């Protein structure tokens, strides 16, 4: 028995030491990221009056720096392409935990996919993995059952197969992250074969996901509790506007929250020159849209 225990102890100690060597990957991972916004959030460096949140439509279509100039409020954009409302809720909680609370939040909504199951809108685990050295991030990953409790004790358990690199990630050339956190498309996509879609599609209310709606309600509740002005924002698609989701939001929203829908009569939103693809504006379109949003913010104080 003594021999057994001794061997197990020695083996465990060696493994424990080996495990700590892997800390190098945890330590360097955040430095290799091109997008530092989440880390800035964790380090309490985003103390702005207005925060833009959402998925790609928030990131590409809303230029926080322009809002800052047009409204006089300091602004920052922490929208992540392909993220869902649950991830936005996580960002909100992180923002409030480590930074000064903002006065206004603009939450860009995905019409019509906000509450529906869409593969391309997900919880952005990939943005969290490089920051796994932060206990806060690791705890969230454990909560989401993405990492095991072992990661509280072992560096290795915080890593995954993509962690073993020292290669610096590059900023996306088409849409680099600006100082204000926004990522407008500055390079033409080269796609010019998409057409304005006139078809009306039925919004399937019955397919809305409970957990997404739950996150949406919680998002509102937190904003209310912290006295934050919440603006729901609908950016243009290259298709005819369908108001079903906006009407749903009106029903689900607390009365003090505001709803901003782009000017559906504006002819520019029907011109291909303002769009990067069917779902996103290019920088020219983003400037027009942001300006419209700034006016709304100024008018509805």
């Amino acid at each position, binding site marked *: 028995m003594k021999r057994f225990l001794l061997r197990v102890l020695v083996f465990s100690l060696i493994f424990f030491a080996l495990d700590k060597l892997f800390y190098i990957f945890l330590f360097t991972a955040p430095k290799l990221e091109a997008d530092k916004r989440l880390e800035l959030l964790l380090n309490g460096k985003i103390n702005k009056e207005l925060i833009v949140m959402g998925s790609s439509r928030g990131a590409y279509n809303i230029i926080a720096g322009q809002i800052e100039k047009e409204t006089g409020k300091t602004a920052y954009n922490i929208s992540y392409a392909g993220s869902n409302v649950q991830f936005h809720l996580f960002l909100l909680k992180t923002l409030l935990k480590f930074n000064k609370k903002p006065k206004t939040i603009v939450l860009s909504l995905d019409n019509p996919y906000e509450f529906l199951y869409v593969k391309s809108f997900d919880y952005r685990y990939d943005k969290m993995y490089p920051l796994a050295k932060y206990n806060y991030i690791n705890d969230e990953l454990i909560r989401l059952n993405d990492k095991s*409790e072992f990661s509280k004790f072992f560096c290795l358990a915080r890593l995954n197969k993509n962690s073993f690199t020292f290669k610096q990630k590059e900023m996306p050339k088409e849409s680099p992250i600006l100082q204000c956190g926004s990522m407008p498309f500055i390079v033409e996509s080269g796609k010019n074969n998409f057409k304005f879609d006139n078809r009306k599609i039925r919004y399937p209310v019955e397919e809305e996901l409970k957990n997404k709606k739950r996150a949406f309600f919680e998002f509102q509740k937190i904003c209310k509790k912290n006295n934050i002005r919440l603006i729901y924002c609908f950016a243009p698609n290259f298709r005819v506007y369908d108001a079903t989701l906006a009407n749903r939001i009106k029903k689900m929203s607390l009365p003090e929250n505001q709803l901003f829908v782009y000017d559906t009569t504006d002819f520019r939103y029907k011109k291909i020159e303002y769009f990067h693809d069917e779902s996103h504006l290019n920088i020219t379109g983003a400037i027009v849209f942001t300006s419209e949003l700034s006016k709304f913010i100024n008018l509805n104080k």
Partner: protein
Amino acid sequence: MLFNSLNFAFFLPVVFTFYWFLTNRNLKTQNILLLLSSYFFYSCWDWRFLFLLIFSTLLDYFSGIQIEKAVNPHQKKFWFWLSIIVNLGFLGIFKYFNFFTESLKDVISVFGFQFNTWTLKVVLPIGISFYTFHGLSYVIDIYKEQIKAEKNFVDYALFVSYFPLLVAGPIERATHLLPQIKKKRNFNYQQAVDGLRQILWGLFKKIVIADNCAIQANLIFNNSTEYSGSTLAIGAVFFAFQIYGDFSGYSDIALGVSRLFGIELLQNFSFPYFSRDIAEFWRRWHISLSSWFKDYLYIPLGGSKGGKWIQVRNTFVVFLVSGFWHGANWTFIIWGLLNAIYFLPLLLLNKNRDHLEIVAIDSKMPSPREFVMMITTFMFTVLAWIFFRADSVMHALQFISGIFSKSFFSIPTERPTYLILLIFSFIIIEWVGRRNKYALEKLGFQYSTFLRWSMYMIIIVCIFIFGAKEQEFIYFQF
């Protein structure tokens, strides 16, 4: 409490320490400790079902004694059938009630009648299929006067509830486990080290192979209409490795944990994917269940006595019941039926016992013929697994028709290189270790401690790094 959870990582060393150090190595105290630990382990899932487990244990314990004490055959039969009916009744209510009412509703609606059914909204008590089978085999053995009834309740309860095998087997026999429970156990260094090694290999199979395959298999099965034939085929292969890694991994952990307490459990898997025909596959896959059905269903039905057709009938009954045991769904029944059909030619040609030894026992590589036989058996098995994994029979049929389409010859869209490499490495290790009880048993024994420990370290590193989202063990639902 999953075997791959942090809770279990605390639970096991605590029980181990108490077991060897604080019980004074007194057998009675050790057994009480193991029983209490097992009940605690079980109640971590749902403490309410602990009462069901205890009730089932008490019933079989008293039935066993009463059967032995019975002064006339009527009394004996009464206690025997009481135990059988109550045990199967619980299984029927918790596992099959909804299936039967839904099936009845479907049948009646064919004739144009409407039938309002109500279904039970209860969670399936974890491990019920396993501990019920423990109890059944015990009572049947006493009834047949093959064993004596156990008078010590703690020993019997431990036989039924021993935590390593409680929730997903292996399905033990009283003749194998009870004598070990009753015998004084001394700490054996080799046995304990071997146990740790087997736990390590089980964790690798579960966390690295099964959980990673699960991600791909789930993706492909859940969106099967969107994928090409080649991707669907790969999805089915991923599931085949998922279920093998999952279940045999669990069994390895169970056996390894038990060895730490000086108790040997029945081997449940023996490299089934290296089988040369389906009969060999079933001698190597879920061995404890196959042998249970053989002893308590196939042989009582007449076995191979009474001619070829009786043998065929009994084989079909066993496979169908085995399918049904796995779950209350037609998909499992068809899975069982398919395996019976695969078995049929071997049975008719008297070739079902051709391959008793592991393939290439005296050589490093299989012969071309053996290789072709292994691949063919594997492919047939994978085809049957599609029914096992699919949500419904229709889903399975659509999946299969998707595979056998023109797009089978296209390049698969889901082909994660890392996972394919992992599976290949896994197959190589399993092949090298195929003559042992589990692949890692004697791997690297010819090398120095340093090299062997390095190998174990690499396996642990892989477990951490490739550890995917924690998935429950598939067989927990059975």
